[in-house]
């Protein structure tokens, strides 16, 4: 048993099948456990990302009342737009899961089709958000107007940047599967991408609740 493996999985929880065969321990624990260890490492990254977002959420919650005489969330937010954005992101999260199944079972139509749908809905989300930001800046409610708007643009914009990076990663994964096929290492990258995409949707749930729904209903 290697030392790195012992730290990653001290109770050897990911080795239910592999531990029956002592020879496979030296080969890195087999496909199943490697998938689990990679997923675990990426999950820790995602949690650290969520902690970063929690700092932005805390900043927003502290500054939400400091509008400096400018518009508040109630004057600015268009809940219909937010509902469409939410629908786009939720559905793309679903199709991303379908793409993951397609990759694991090596079905081209499922993988490429579902990834394309995920991209289209993710891009629609970004387009709606850019449109919303441009509208706010045009009516004089840009990030420099008040502490509330600075915090709003930082929090929502940071999520938007994550989604944009996710879209680039999505295209990269499609290209890698196309060029290299469904290799185990590529499949692990697809797993990490789908974890990332689902985590972005979790952050959006907190975001539309705290920022938009509570802001519009004040």
């Amino acid at each position: 048993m290697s030392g790195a493996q012992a730290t990653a999985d001290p109770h050897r929880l990911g080795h239910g099948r592999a531990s029956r065969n002592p020879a496979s321990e030296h080969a890195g624990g087999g496909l199943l456990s490697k998938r689990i260890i990679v997923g675990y490492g990426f999950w820790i990254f995602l949690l650290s990302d969520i902690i970063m977002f929690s700092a932005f959420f805390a900043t927003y919650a502290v500054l939400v009342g400091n509008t400096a005489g400018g518009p508040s969330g109630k004057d600015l937010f268009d809940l219909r737009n937010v509902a469409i954005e939410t629908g786009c992101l939720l559905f793309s999260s679903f199709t991303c899961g379908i793409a993951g199944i397609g990759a694991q079972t090596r079905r081209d139509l499922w993988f490429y089709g579902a990834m394309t749908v995920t991209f289209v809905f993710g891009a629609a989300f970004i387009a709606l958000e850019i449109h919303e930001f441009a509208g706010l800046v045009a009516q004089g409610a840009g990030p420099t107007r008040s502490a509330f708007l600075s915090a709003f643009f930082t929090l929502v914009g940071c999520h938007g940047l994550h989604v944009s990076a996710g879209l680039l990663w999505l295209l990269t994964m499609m290209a890698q599967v196309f060029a290299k096929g469904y290799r185990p290492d590529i499949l692990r990258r697809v797993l990490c991408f789908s974890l990332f995409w689902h985590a972005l949707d979790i952050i959006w749930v907190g975001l539309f609740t705290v920022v938009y729904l509570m802001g519009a209903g004040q």
Partner: protein
Amino acid sequence: MSDFEPGTPPDVAPGEENAESVTTYLVGLGLATLLTIVSFFVAGTSLVWAPSIPVALTVLAIAQMGVHLVFFLHITTGPDNVNNVMALAFGVLIVLLIMAGSLWIMAHMNHNMMPMEQMMQMQR
């Protein structure tokens, strides 16, 4: 099953656990859609007592995050998942500390600070 053989079949055989996984995602999508619709409805309604709306929205959001974690991220109570659940618990602890701590401290500082008009007069 070694990682280094490119031809190794994945641990999920095609068509075997597959239908079940799609069902999981469909159930997750259904529940998440339902919770989202209820959230948007509650935010705009006048049917419930107004001060209870933020509490209801918070509960709905936490429920929806739970749905995402279980049905999309597959964080479950299985033996493969103990490490993931422990990491999640630690993450939730830190998130709660940051959010509640910031709000608590900043509310106190706000409360103890001199009103802005007086501060401006003192600086003259």
